[in-house]
Structure formats: structure tokens, C-alpha cells
């Protein structure tokens, strides 16, 4: 009987906790409706399409290819990124560059974002700092897989 009474007290305590959450949150919701600004909010929800959370500075988002001063890609088609890529989503086709300093440039540079796992190894592997994942763009969902294949134009632009 005493044990049952202990349960009963715990049951009451549980409902007190939820009631407290309800009352406190409702209080802040009502303050918001009345137009009174408070530091604390009634809910922790971020209402996504309208409100966005800041992306961390190290967040790995959509790739971009860096360019030289003359607008050509900085990439020298060394294939290190394609080699290190664990999901094999990078395809690079090299071509000869007239400039002997550079030697090679990518004729094709294709990333299949449908396969990419955003590990960031390509960024780490790149000796020329030609590929970065710092665009901050995380909203590139598409209706077809074909639209997820990004080529040189899309990656530079």
C-alpha cells in the first residue's frame, strides 16, 4: 500500500512537470501573440523555410570549383580527388593546357551529387585548393537524378 502511494506521488509529479511545461510555454506564446518581445521563446522550433539556422563555418555544403584570375578553373586535373573519393562520384577528364606552367586542365569535371556523401576528402586531397565545399548551399534537392549531376559550368558558376 505504501509502495502504491509512492507510485501515486510520482504520477502526480509527472503530471506537474508536463503542466509546468504547458503553462510556461503557453505564457510565452501568449506574450508573443500580444506583441511583447521576450528573450525566451515558447518553443525551440525553427520554422524551416521561413527561418533558417546559421550554418557552421566548417559545414560541408555544395561544392564549388575555384578559378584563376583569368577565369579558368584552378584545377590541374591531377585526379587526386577522383582517386580519394569513397563514393566514386567525381569524374575528371584531363586535356593539355598550352601553358607549360599548368600542363593540364579539366576538359570535364563532373560530380554526381546523387552519390556524393559529403565527406570532404576531395577538398582535403586537392593540392591546388581548387575545390571547396563552402558555398553554404544545402538546398539542392531535385526531382530527377539527372539534375543532380553537376558539370564544370554549374560547379564554377
Amino acid at each position: 500500500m505504501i509502495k502504491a502511494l509512492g507510485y501515486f506521488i510520482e504520477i502526480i509529479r509527472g503530471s506537474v512537470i508536463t503542466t509546468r511545461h504547458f503553462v510556461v510555454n503557453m505564457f510565452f506564446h501568449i506574450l508573443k501573440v500580444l506583441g511583447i518581445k521576450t528573450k525566451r521563446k515558447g518553443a525551440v522550433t525553427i520554422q524551416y523555410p521561413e527561418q533558417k539556422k546559421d550554418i557552421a563555418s566548417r559545414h560541408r555544403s555544395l561544392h564549388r570549383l575555384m578559378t584563376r584570375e583569368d577565369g579558368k578553373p584552378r584545377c590541374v586535373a591531377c585526379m587526386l580527388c577522383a582517386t580519394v573519393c569513397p563514393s566514386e562520384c567525381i569524374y575528371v577528364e584531363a586535356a593539355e593546357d598550352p601553358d607549360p606552367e599548368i600542363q593540364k586542365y579539366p576538359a570535364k569535371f563532373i560530380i554526381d551529387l546523387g552519390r556524393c556523401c559529403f565527406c570532404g576528402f576531395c577538398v582535403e586531397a586537392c593540392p591546388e585548393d581548387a575545390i571547396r565545399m563552402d558555398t553554404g548551399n544545402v538546398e539542392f534537392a531535385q526531382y530527377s537524378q539527372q539534375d543532380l549531376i553537376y558539370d564544370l559550368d554549374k560547379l564554377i558558376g
Partner: protein
Amino acid sequence: MTETLTEMLIIFIKIVCALVWFLLLTLYLTWLERKESAVIQDRIGANRAQIFGIRIIGLFQPFADALKMIFKEDFVPSFSRKFLHTIAPFISFFFVAITIAAIPFGDILRIGKRTINLQILDFNVGLLFILAMLSLGIYGIIISGWASNNRYTLTGGLRGAAQVISYEVALGLSLIGLIMVYPSLRLSSIVLYQGELLFGFLPKWGIFLQPLGFVIFLFAALAETKRVPFDLPEGESEIIGFFTEYSGLKWGLFMMTDFMEIIIISTLLTTLFFGGWQVPWLASDGFHFPWGGEVLLPHLVVVLFQVAAFNIKVFFFCWLQILIRWTYPRFRYDQVMDLGWKLLVPLSLVNIIGTGIIMTI
């Protein structure tokens, strides 16, 4: 002749009003459940449903849900017993929906020379009628479990039957003390008795005369609604319940039945233990405070006060039941049975004996 026609018209209007009140409240309880659970868990809850870009904190959500359910495929498994499978949700729904007939929404409304009782039918067995209809609702569960022709739904239906029948005992016994105190089964006279004063200041509500009966009734009623602390028949998250083989609007009817049971339980708690439409110290001509002083009010305002008081009390109990649903985890099956047979039934017997002793003294 015109007299009978007017009477019929009044009854018809009363039925329509009560049913509209009942169903709208049911629809909005689904909204309230989502919103309240969200507020309890520091979230916002459904607020995206909109009409022409207007979304008032998601108030259109119930209609969006209803539309979605209407247009879903009404799937009937090929191995089920078709007729019973179709009729089961309607049985569940009907027996809960009909109970609203006996609930008193307010006192007598006088328009001109005519007096209108704000209750569809003033039974002299109103309380028994409601309890009986709530018990008959169990047939919907058993039939749906049986007709789905699926072992899991059958065991779910059996669990439901066992649970509801055992709590029916505690539910009925907990009310006997109350019936002894207010010697009537007519709900309107039970409410009228509760308008009297205890010790000259305390309204003679059931909660003050029958506190133990109230607690037992609350627990038994929660078990009757088959919702979370006692949701063994349904078990939506793990154990498979009795309406597994239902989809679309038929499933929606079972869902609505749950919410309608919440409302009926709330109205019962209000009428039996919290004075129904009684506002403390409000008589038919205005407030008469026990410390002296009177505020006289016109008849229509008094009726408005009474109906509003009834509604506020019902809303409070709906809110409380949803709070309970979002606070506690589910009981184990043997714990449910223990609570029903070993705690609530003996306690309600103690309550009856105690009430009898106090009344004879």
C-alpha cells in the same frame, strides 16, 4: 397541430445543435491534441494548413485531415468478413454519438411563453443510458477484431473487451455512491441538486461530496476511452491493435470514437462531479453571494452563463485528459487488470460503504 410541429422543430434543432457541437469539438480535439502535445514538448505543432494563405495557428488542420481521410483508399482485405468489417466502425461511432442525447447543456430556456429544456431527452435513467451505450460501444471493437480475420486484431479486440468490461465494473460502482447522495438517475435533477449549498457557502458539487468516487471514476473513465495510459486494445506503436486492417474514413471513425469518448467522459465528469451547468452561487435570477450581496441578471444572460460554464468545464476536462495522455507511459497488461480489479473495484466498494455510513449518521 402547430403545437406538435413546433415541438418537433424544437427537438430537431436541439439534435442538430448538440450533434454539431459534438462533432466540431471532436474535430478540434484532434487539433488540440496535436497543439497541446507540442506545447508540452516545447514544440509548435501543426500550423501549416491554410486556406487562401490564411493560417490561423493551424485551425484548418482538422478539415485538411478529414479531406485526406475521405480521399484515401478504403481498403478491405480479401480475407476479411466484409459485412462485419464495414459495419464495425459504424457501431463504435453510433453508440458514442447517441450518448450526447442525455447530456444537459443548461437549465430551462424561456422564450416568450415557451420553455425549452437545454437537453435533447430528459430521461429518468439518463445516467444508466449513457453507461449502457458506452458499454455497447465495445461491440464495435470486438466485431472489428473478429471481422478483420487476423490473429493480431483478434487478440487486440479481446484485450479491448477484457479491459473495457473490467473497468465498466469500477465505473458503475464508483457512481453508486453519487447516486446515493443525489437520489436520482436523471442527469438534469443531479445537476439541480448540485446547485444547493453545503455549509452555506460551498456549492454541493460531486467532487466535494464524493472525492474518492471522483478519483475512481476518473481512472475508470480514462481506461474506457482506450487512450494512452490504457491503450492496450489499440497499441498504435508496438503491439498490434484491433483496427489494424482499417484505412481511410473507417479508421477515422475509430479515431473519432476515441475523441468523442473523451468528450462524453468530460461531460459526465462535469455533470456528475463539477455541477454541470451550475455556476457557483448563480440562481435563476442572478448571483446570490454567501457573504451577502446580490447581482441580478436577466434570464438570457443567466442561461448564457450556464451554457458557458458547462462548456468551460468540459474543455478543461478534455484538456486534462489530453495532458494525461501525453504524460504517462502505457501500463503493462497485468498492471491494467490489477489496477482495475484489485484497487479500483475494492476502493469503490469502500466508497459505497463509507457513503452509506455517513448518510445514516
